[in-house]
């Protein structure tokens, strides 16, 4: 495997990891634009724009885009997060030129009015779909509550109101500000060669306007909020608890990844033995979420409503013990084995390598090979975990519950948010 990198005159960064031993090639544009870059007025525009990208440009209709990707047998999609919008696809090597041409088309869409109105309905259906899933509601509300007053608290989908009010003109304006070439990374991984990638990038992206959007990356200072959203039709009670964790550029992040495995992976972790193996909860997991400038521990517990309050106390006891005593060398070693084999398995597919390549570059302007990732993982020791815990202890700064319960306070049925959703 070989790594290559260049920057076009307009500021577009191109990175590639070539590998002659695989049968396919994956490519993706990583745009540094997401819900945190939106104002309340245009909430949801990044994600709506991602949908509109597939409606074509001056030379391609929406039908053309859909048809041509299928003609080359592409596995393709797009996604929008709080920070990054990604357009990606995997194809057989002979179709890379066409795939890149079409992916490039997505970045400069026409945003036609008639397409905009139809797609608005699709977005409203997507919002409706997530409304019906208590776990999605819980995620959305916990991000909103934890990062209240901070851009990371903005909803990716937006609200029914903001989507209904959005205009194509406002979307064009947002696009002009956020889709400058300096704000985009093209990543390619798999069976291809660098000269071809560079030439294709110049041909399809060389004429794009320059521009880079600056965002406020000040670390969030979550005030701590507890919200209980009553949903009587729900069978289980879903709870998400959040606390501050290292950011995407923090030296603590490898330790954080491993700690989340020791404490809260879906098998063999401390939360697993305490809550899931024993049958007290359907799921009890700890995730580490890294963002630019901020990070979050995210705890998720799904269980029968009656058991919820007791389960949360157990989670807290597990965290108190970890914060006080750290983790053992033995459990850390086990977590490293799990993470290492996951790195190897993910690294076998060009799509797996693409997501690592793209994320590393957009967040850290850094290239990490599979070997580098394995080394980073191996280098974490118990003292590194101790330092991490001192800086970012596990906690429950924010709590959001969705389900039949009216309150999380034992023996009360009192104050909470008005019925919502």
């Amino acid at each position, binding site marked *: 495997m070989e790594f290559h990198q260049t920057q076009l005159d307009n500021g577009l960064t191109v990175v590639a990891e070539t590998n002659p031993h695989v*049968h396919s090639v994956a490519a993706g544009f990583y745009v540094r634009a997401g819900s945190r870059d939106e104002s309340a007025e245009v909430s949801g525009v990044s994600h709506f724009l991602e949908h509109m990208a597939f409606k074509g440009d001056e030379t391609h209709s929406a*039908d053309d885009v859909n048809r041509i990707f299928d003609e080359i047998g592409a596995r393709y999609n797009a996604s929008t997060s709080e920070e990054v919008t990604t357009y990606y696809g995997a194809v057989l090597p002979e179709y890379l030129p066409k795939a890149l041409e079409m992916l490039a088309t997505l970045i400069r869409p026409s945003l036609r009015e008639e397409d905009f109105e139809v797609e608005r309905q699709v977005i409203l259906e997507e919002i409706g779909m997530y409304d019906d899933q208590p776990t999605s509601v819980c995620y959305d509300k916990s991000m909103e509550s934890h990062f209240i007053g901070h851009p990371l608290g903005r909803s990716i989908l937006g609200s029914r109101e903001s989507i209904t009010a959005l205009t194509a003109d406002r979307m064009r304006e947002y696009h002009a500000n956020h889709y400058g070439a300096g704000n985009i990374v093209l990543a390619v991984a798999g069976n291809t060669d660098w000269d071809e990638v560079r030439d294709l990038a110049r041909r399809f992206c060389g004429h794009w306007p320059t521009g880079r959007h600056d965002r406020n990356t000040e670390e969030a200072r979550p005030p701590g909020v507890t919200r209980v959203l009553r949903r009587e039709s729900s069978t289980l009670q879903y709870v998400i608890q959040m606390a501050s964790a290292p950011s995407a550029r923090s030296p603590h992040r490898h330790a954080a990844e491993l700690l989340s495995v020791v404490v809260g992976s879906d098998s063999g972790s401390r939360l697993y033995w305490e809550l899931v193996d024993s049958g007290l909860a359907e799921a009890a997991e700890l995730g580490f979420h890294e963002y630019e400038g901020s990070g979050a521990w995210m705890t998720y517990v799904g269980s029968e409503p009656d058991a919820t309050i007791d389960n949360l106390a157990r989670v807290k006891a597990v965290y108190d013990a970890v914060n006080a005593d750290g983790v053992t060398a033995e459990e850390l070693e086990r977590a490293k084995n799990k993470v290492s084999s996951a790195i190897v398995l993910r690294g076998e597919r060009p799509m797996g390598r693409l997501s690592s390549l793209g994320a590393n570059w957009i967040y850290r302007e850094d290239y990490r090979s599979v070997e580098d990732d394995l080394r980073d993982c191996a280098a974490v020791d118990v003292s590194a975990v101790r330092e991490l815990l001192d800086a970012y202890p596990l906690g429950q700064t924010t709590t959001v519950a969705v389900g039949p319960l009216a309150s999380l306070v034992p023996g009360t049925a009192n104050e909470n948010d008005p019925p919502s959703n």
Partner: protein
Amino acid sequence: MSALPLEVRTHVLDNGLVLLLQPMPAVRSAALSLLVPAGSVYEQPARNGTAALLCDLVTRGAGDRDNRDLSTAFDDLGVQRHESIASEHVAFSAATVSHNLTATLELYADVALRPRLPEAEFEPTRLGVAQSLQAIEDDPRQKVMLELRRRCWEDPWGRPSDGCLADLPSVTLEDVREHHALCFRPNGSILGIAGSFDPDAVTEQVERLFGDWDGGRIPTIEPGPEMPSLDHLDYDSTQTQIGIGYPSVPYRDPDYYTAWAAVSLLSGGTSSRLWNEVREKRGLVYAVSASLSSLKDRAHVLCYAGTTVERSQETLEVMFAEIERLASGLEAGELERCKARAKTALVMQQESSVARAGAVARDWYHLGRVKPLEDVREKVEAITETDVLGFLAENPPGDYTVVTIGPEPPQLDSSVSLRRALSTESDEG
């Protein structure tokens, strides 16, 4: 391009266990897929959930290791594992770096041959299974497809393989142990392994580990009652979930790839008909899809859409109109696009040990052999428009099963296309 994969080596042990080895020298991992014929179709009547309980319980201690030791041993080897239940099988899937394959196989031999099925673990297991079923109640998208399968295939074939909340409390540890005694056996079990390893050494090891596994008789299956083919379940939600099913041909049928192409026209890529008509042109849904779901001897096309209540009627109509329109001809390039997508899928399967291990085991289950990928590619390549239309003429979509979940039922009989689509049903009923 893409070099053909090395041939799959087949080895059948004297006790009937089938071992399939797919060497993949370019990868650093190894993956296994172990199918044991202990799926939900073999459960006793009114004991739906027995297979799910057993599937969980066998991993809670086996051989010399108790629950925690076994879990720790898997984790020490970095095994990414997954257990699931299908109609006929309990499926164990595992992947790790290839030098840990030998030790991983030792653990699975314990799980398959020497599970402890401890009494102390039974209640926690039942609580866990019950809560995962409750979680499905909170996920109407998942629920509608389960309810659709139940109504497409008579019991036990349509039975939810993960169990049901109504039966679960009555399943005892004895039921689970009996299910194990009857169904965990080498004859009917399939072990597929793909990745980088020495085939001779692995064959020898599997002989040693599984060679003295005792065979048993294959239980007979008594078909149960059928459920209504048009049904609505009340649910407090924003969207109505729609499931539509109609019969097609199973994987082992000579016409399978033609049947697959017909479904792929409906719901292959983003240029497919359902995606285009339901989502792209009308904006009725976020998600709409159709897939050919095959058991060993029967298959249905299962279609899904989720849409807000007031648009559910129109969504149903457009879906039926598209399904019915299939037989009236193909557009230029449509079939070629389906083929291009299939080709990509076949090639990408060769890059992943996990995908490949699953595919060889599945092939054997359906066909009693592993179909070389090159044969599949040739078969797909050879499909013509005439084939597809001929298939649809002989197997026209009909005999529909429709399930909706939402605040109110759509009026199934108020529209022309629905009436036409459902006319077979009303004639019979």
